[in-house]
């Protein structure tokens, strides 16, 4: 017995167990904070859109209406669980889970401040692309399993939209990868803090523009929300879902928005850092503990989310053929041009950049 005990509990293994516990705690924190953000994202969206339509939006439930999302969520939890009679049951159950899980998993590679990442892998960006592709599976499965023509059409439309814009999104980020020299998200942010302008958005404005448009299309948001728009022949691929499963789709969509905003912040807006010239101007900033920088990160993410809501309340919807034309015929050539240009400039000024 004693030998087995000594073989298992070595100093190395205690370290190992400690590491696992820390990762577990990080996961809990990230998921909890992520879901909280998502709940309030729905609230802020309704308020911002209402303000832009000269209305007030939710204001009565709780102080300033802040408990509205919890009210919605709790109500959905207690609703009867209806499953269409001819639905393909295993796929019906699995579809919202896949969608939600794919979105949540992407949260694990995002660094919120220096040193805090659940999984610091060297192919962070690639991992996120892979997870968003999995999300498309969830949509098609839900459309198929619902045994309803509208849901099926909505699912197909949505999936083809996501697949088309994934390419543009990936290509737009290649410019960033060339400039930073790495796929690791923490490395990209550190490279930006060394860069003169502090954010890659300034030299990579073309890439940034393509990324923004692709991000809107990936998350099925206006002006690209044709598959799930309410006035277009029922609610799209989640028509047949009720209660908590419907809530999972909803949460998955907002988590997707959160992830896109985070990637934009990390890759184009400098992540949790402020530009070098600001740090030089105010030297006391470098004395701050690393935890404080998470607020810079959050501020940038919220600014991007506000931009999501702003665009939603301003622009009309694109028709399906216009949508496809933009994805394939405009964004991909632009992103490719951006890559070529970045590559040429980088190899020309090998030492300077």
């Amino acid at each position, binding site marked *: 017995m004693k030998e087995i005990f000594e073989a298992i509990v070595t100093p190395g293994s205690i370290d190992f167990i400690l590491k696992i516990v820390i990762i577990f705690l990080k996961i809990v924190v990230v998921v909890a904070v992520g879901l909280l953000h998502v709940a309030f994202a729905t609230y802020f969206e309704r308020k911002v859109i209402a*303000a*832009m339509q000269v209305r007030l939006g939710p204001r009565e439930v709780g102080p300033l*209406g802040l408990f509205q999302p919890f009210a919605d969520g*709790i109500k959905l939890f207690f609703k009867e669980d209806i499953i269409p009679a001819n639905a393909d049951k295993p796929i019906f159950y699995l579809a919202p889970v896949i969608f939600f899980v794919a979105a949540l998993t992407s949260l694990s590679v995002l660094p919120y401040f220096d040193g805090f990442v659940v999984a610091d892998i060297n192919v962070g960006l690639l991992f996120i692309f892979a997870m968003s592709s999995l999300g498309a599976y969830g949509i098609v499965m839900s459309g198929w399993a619902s045994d309803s023509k509208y849901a099926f059409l909505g699912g197909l439309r949505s999936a083809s939209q996501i697949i088309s814009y994934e390419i543009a999104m990936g290509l737009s980020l290649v410019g960033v990868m060339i400039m930073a020299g790495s796929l690791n998200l923490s490395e990209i942010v550190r490279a930006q803090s060394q860069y003169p302008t502090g954010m890659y958005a300034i030299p990579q404005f073309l890439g940034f523009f393509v990324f923004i448009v692709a991000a809107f299309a990936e998350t099925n948001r206006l002006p690209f929300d044709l598959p799930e728009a309410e006035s277009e022949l029922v609610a799209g691929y989640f028509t047949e879902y009720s209660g908590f499963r419907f809530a999972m789709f909803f949460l998955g969509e907002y988590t997707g928005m959160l992830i896109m905003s985070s990637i934009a912040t990390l890759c184009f807006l400098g992540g949790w850092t402020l530009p070098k010239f600001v740090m030089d101007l105010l030297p006391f900033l470098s004395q701050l503990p690393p935890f404080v920088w998470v607020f810079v990160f959050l501020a940038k993410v919220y600014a991007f989310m506000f931009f999501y809501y702003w665009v939603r309340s301003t622009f009309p919807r694109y028709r399906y053929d216009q949508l496809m034309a933009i994805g394939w015929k405009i964004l991909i050539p632009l992103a490719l041009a951006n890559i070529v240009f970045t590559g040429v400039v980088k190899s020309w000024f090998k030492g300077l950049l």
Partner: protein
Amino acid sequence: MIKEILKNIISKTHVIPFPEGFRISPEEAAKGMNFQERIDKVFGRSLRIRQVDAGSCNACEWECTALTNPIYDIQRFGIDFVASPRHADALLVTGPISRQMELALKKTYLATPEPRLVIACGDCAIDGGIYKDSYAVTNGVANVIPVDCYIPGCPPTPVGIILGLQQLLDKLTGE
């Protein structure tokens, strides 16, 4: 367009005021429109309504649509209109229930997950209204599906619909 948006954000949040002579009973005016406190026991302050037209002349529909405009804005009470009956908590039925819509109404009722409510909106939905005893009409929603609340009027004004919903919630919370 940009100017409009900036104007709405920068200027102080203002709500288009309710009109003068807005008919509200003195008791309600004294209490204030605080019935959102009562939307809690059953629905946790969140009511999603699916509106079903079962033969109405469409005046009641336009009044329901008016509820979502910036002047009445029922979204601030946590009430929303939804597209799919599976996402709904309440059915708001208008019209005298023409016989050719009976089956569709029943199916919509069955597709709504429990707990669910049915609100009969308008004189026609109560007992057939002006169309009472016409051959193609079933004289009211109660003859087809069970009803929880009646809102009279031809058509009921948006304020009337809000007050009717308020009374429904009073009934649900036992006041």
